[in-house]
């Protein structure tokens, strides 16, 4: 039996999960999602980790492997670190065993990952250095329009005549949007327009990793935005790709889950190899 923790330190939130793995059986013991909001993410991670252990009635010494992902490379109490795409792929397969591609949609980056049935990364593609069309942008616009995050999806779904944002730059696009407001374009049409341009980029990412068919699981902060999800499915259909994008209520935890599960995998592998030092990973 292996107890592992997965900690995903993101730019917006820290996600922490706890797992018990025994052979093929995996049991999810607990989860937390804490928005960072100007706090120290490492402290936050530590608090969350201990709070989770307490809830689960465990001690730190019970945990065999603490795996970090995201920006957690320098978390002082981790056993090993896995890079986000590795963990998201694994987490996605855990949440939806059918998933053969993952779309991780975070605040600043989008990543498309193609994986096999075991959660192994086959290929991936990230958005470029320029933050155009990022989640941050959507967040800014929503704030500007006075729309709460969980309202975005349903509003976007009501659009009747979406207005597409033309600017490449996220900042200049903000002005485009402000122009739209003064031209009387409704919030649903604006949001849908943004979703369309984001979905276009994401679909392009999916296509470039060769995700031609099957299930794509969306992970990351924006995965739960139903408006984006719908638009994405429209967009891939337009591109004649035979894939369907899904999300899962626990999509935001995919990275943390993947980290925990890989941690377990690595722990067992190293144990088999006869107690080899973990130094290399730490």
């Amino acid at each position, binding site marked *: 039996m292996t107890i592992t923790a997965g900690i995903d330190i993101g730019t917006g939130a820290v996600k922490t999960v706890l797992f018990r793995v025994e052979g093929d059986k995996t049991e999810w013991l607990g989860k937390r999602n804490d928005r960072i909001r100007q706090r120290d993410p490492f402290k936050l991670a530590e608090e969350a980790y201990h709070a989770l252990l307490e809830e689960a009635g465990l001690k730190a010494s019970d945990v065999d492997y603490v795996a970090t992902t995201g920006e957690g490379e320098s978390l002082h109490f981790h056993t090993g670190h896995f890079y986000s795409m590795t963990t998201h792929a694994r987490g996605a397969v855990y949440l939806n065993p059918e998933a053969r591609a993952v779309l991780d949609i975070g605040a600043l980056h989008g990543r498309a990952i193609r994986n096999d049935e075991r959660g192994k990364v086959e290929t991936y593609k990230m958005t*470029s250095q320029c933050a155009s069309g990022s989640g941050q942008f959507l967040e800014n616009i929503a704030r500007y329009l006075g729309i709460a995050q969980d309202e975005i999806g349903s509003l976007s779904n009501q659009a009747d005549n979406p207005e597409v944002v*033309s600017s*490449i730059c996220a900042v200049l696009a903000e002005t485009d949007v402000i122009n739209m407001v003064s031209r009387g374009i409704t919030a649903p049409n604006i949001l849908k327009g943004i979703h369309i341009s984001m979905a276009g980029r994401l679909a*392009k990412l999916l*296509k*470039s990793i060769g995700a031609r068919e099957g299930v794509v699981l969306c992970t990351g902060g924006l995965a739960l935005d139903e408006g984006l999800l719908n638009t994405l499915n429209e967009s891939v259909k337009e591109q004649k790709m035979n894939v369907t994008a899904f999300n899962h209520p626990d999509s935001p935890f995919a990275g943390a889950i993947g980290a925990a599960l890989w941690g377990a995998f690595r722990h067992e592998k190293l144990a088999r190899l006869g107690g080899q030092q973990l130094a290399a990973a730490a």
Partner: protein
Amino acid sequence: MSAATSPEVIKEPSMVKQKEMIAGNYDRLTGTKESGEKVVSTFVPGNLNELIMCFDMVNNLPETNAIQNGMRKVSGGMIMDAEKAGHSEDVCTYVKADIGMMGRGNIAPNGKPMPAPDMLLLSYTGCFTFMKWFELLRHEYKCPTVMLQIPYQGDGKITKNMRDFVVKQLKEEVIPMFEKVSGVKFDIDRLREYLKNSAKAEDNLVWVLESAKNRPSPIDAYFGGVYYIGPMFTAFRGTTDAVEYYDLVRKEIEQRIREGKGPITPEGDMKEEKYRLVVEGPPNWTSFREFWKLFYDEGAVVVASSYTKVGGLYDQGFRHDPNDPLGTLADYCLGCYTNNNLPQRVELLEKYMNDYQADGLLINSIKSCNSFSAGQLLMMREIEKRTGKPAAFIETDLVDPRYFSHANVKNRLESYFQMVDQKRSGASLAAA
């Protein structure tokens, strides 16, 4: 470099003729399966059309296809296809439009599929991307490819070593490959005949381009210019069709000069000539009409441009010479505009500014094309310094609609024209 598809308001006979010529070539290209003719793909700068004709092969110019697709607003999708297939966002969009077009079955403007090339003539004049472009095509088509390396005029002159090298390649690499692929034996006298035609047409093309020295200029040497260079730069140089076309254009323009008319625009004759500009850099094709409109609406006419010299610097005296058939082909390739070094390019633009009495220089900097674009900002400074005339700089792309921002270009041009205006009437304004 050909007529756009939407209907012209006024159709001069030369326009009709050009349309027919282009349609004819596409029909010939898409009919090779029936006719059994062989196709060679090559580039506009360093286009060896006369030589190709000697082997009864059909000339296919991927650049021209990209332009066609740009003007018909389908290039955007093709470029995205290529990017999805792993081609970088950063590289020349002609290449990506071409690769994307291939992915969509290579459909010519006449709706029929184009044949795969039987041979690639990689005449590498003035641009490194050409080399990679045809390597990429070769990677796909696996067809015979011959490289004709044209050394760059790094020191602003054509040396004997360069010329010998090109002639040697023609003799020992290019012609043998042509003979092998086409099965036709090379006949130098045939080449001489075609070169004679070229020279004739070239005389008239130069006359047409130089007619812009008139006030008002009867032509627009950039937006209109791309139509005038069309036959010369593509599959017609050396043909009798081209000779006839240029005769026709010349007559039409002589008529315009007699009538004191300005250039023809898509919306009829241009009214008042308010600004005379020299333009450096290729145009944007995806919004060609909108782009042009920004000029003629303001009364701006382009009197000289460097883009109309990418397929040969005829106005600087070069003519194809039937007496030295291979040498003249070498000179032609070595002399194309983008094979000139930067100081030569600056000098040429300066000369245009003076010879054509321009009010200013406009640089349309193309994201795709480093061959043109790298160094343009220095060229702009040099021209400003040498002529004292204002210059403006705008940025667009050839066939990628994502990089044409109408609002941006408009803002720049408006500011520029107002600046030229304000400068002209400076004295009176400053009184306050």
